[in-house]
């Protein structure tokens, strides 16, 4: 019995592929800039947006997208003002999960909605959602394509980039808006609590084993795709949740890359 006999599996694979592509690319820059926490935080506030949207009868995807983008822009503007505010940020994040929960309390299909939003429901992706994901994926990749060159410069050498006329704040705002969009997309597949697994895992693993920019970007996308596809396949045959398999594979790949990297440095040390 092939899993592709089922339409929902076709949709799931298509959706996961789009999101993995976006997550790998955006995640690469997120890890490079040491801003992985932003992805995590945006997913949390996105939960409030999604549940708020459900409450007023709008699709949760659009609630999620608008709040994560707005959150990303706000974070970009606040910039360094957010540094060392761990407690304040923590309170805002738990408050948004709490608010989301309250919104869902007023909604009848409570339990399934909660798990779908928190942990993802890739098997429930219908055709309209798939189309929306494709459009959002194109928008975020186009945005990243436009800013990637100055973003790289500003990430690695902010003072020099500024001296060459780059506007660091503008770049940061644009990038975090794209991260917000990518976060909303990831949340459709693995849920708001596990966005890290698709966005940060593959990119961080890639940066462990290659020091070349394009190799790193390619590997990040490749890892994300493998994790998504293999995760879905394992979920289909085991009947366990796909989000579990994706997180397990993401961790596995990261650990393997870590071991490969430490093996390589040990070889260097011996060889030198």
């Amino acid at each position: 019995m092939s899993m592709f006999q089922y339409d929902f599996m076709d949709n799931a694979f298509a959706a996961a592929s789009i999101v993995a592509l976006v997550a790998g690319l955006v995640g690469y820059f997120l890890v490079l800039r040491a801003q992985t926490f932003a992805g995590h935080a945006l997913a949390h506030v996105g939960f409030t947006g999604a549940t708020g949207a459900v409450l007023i009868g709008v699709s949760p995807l659009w609630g999620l997208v608008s709040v994560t983008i707005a959150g990303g822009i706000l974070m970009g503007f606040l910039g360094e003002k957010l540094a060392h505010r761990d407690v304040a940020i923590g309170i805002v994040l738990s408050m948004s999960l709490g608010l989301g929960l309250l919104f869902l309390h007023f909604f009848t299909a409570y339990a399934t909605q909660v798990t779908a939003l928190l942990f993802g429901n890739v098997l429930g992706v219908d055709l309209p959602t798939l189309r929306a994901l494709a459009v959002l994926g194109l928008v975020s990749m186009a945005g990243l394509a436009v800013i990637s060159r100055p973003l790289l410069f500003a990430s690695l050498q902010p003072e020099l980039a500024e001296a060459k006329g780059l506007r660091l704040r503008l770049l940061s705002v644009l990038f975090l808006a794209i991260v917000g969009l990518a976060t909303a997309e990831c949340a459709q597949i693995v849920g708001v609590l596990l966005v890290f697994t698709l966005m940060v895992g593959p990119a961080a693993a890639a940066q462990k084993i290659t020091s070349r920019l394009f190799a790193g970007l390619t590997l990040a996308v490749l890892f994300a795709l493998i994790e998504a596809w293999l995760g879905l396949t394992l979920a289909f045959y085991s009947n366990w949740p796909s989000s579990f398999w994706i997180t397990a594979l993401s961790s596995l790949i990261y650990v393997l890359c870590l071991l490969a990297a430490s093996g390589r440095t040990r070889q260097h040390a011996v060889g030198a």
Partner: protein
Amino acid sequence: MMQADKAAACHGLRIELGGRVVLEHVSFAIEQGEFVGLLGPNGAGKTSLLRVMLGLLAPAAGQVEILGGSPAARRSAIGYVPQIRTNPAGLSLSARDFVAAAAGGSRWGLPILSKSDRADVEQALDLVGGAALADRPLGSLSGGERQRLLLAQALLGRPRLLLLDEPLVNLDPHRQRDVVELVQKLQRQYKLAVLFSAHDLNPLLGAMDRVLYLGGGQAVIGNVGEVINGPVLTRLYGSPIEVMHAGARIFVVPGAQP
């Protein structure tokens, strides 16, 4: 227009930060191809002055001209080595990709280098003796090696004025001499004007043509002998300063109250 033939000219500069006057009455000019040491203790305003010359900080009063134009208009003619960061991003990236990020890095689009950009990057790496480092990850390099990569980035696009912010900090004396000699070689080879900031003047003694000394919120410029002596520095700081010579080395110390 003040002095179009100068690499840089400042007149009557006042620099304020957070409502405090950092520097005042600063006037000087740097000739083309000249090596000027920018000296002064920590907090004297070296970084602030460089930021004004880069057009990143607006002076509260006075004018700055770089190669006869405004700093913003001369952006591409200025090479800048910022003070090295304690926790830089991208430690996993190779030295070559790190340098390449600065090649035309302010244009929108994908980070794909043109043929001439790539040639520029290789040449800049060669000039700083960084070709052998090119494939190593940034995180595996020493402070001196990283400093050379910053210099390579500053050389992209063939600048005519090089501004260096404390490139000797955290280097041992051997590496300090290597960096100074490297900058001096580039200065002569390309007729670069150099403004090299440091808080100790000794590593720069053989290399600099003149010294721009910041202290007490003011600046003096001149030959080492003209500037680094008790009376001039005492007037600058407004408190007694003694200058001691030990062999070829010079030490500036607070003097005894008369």
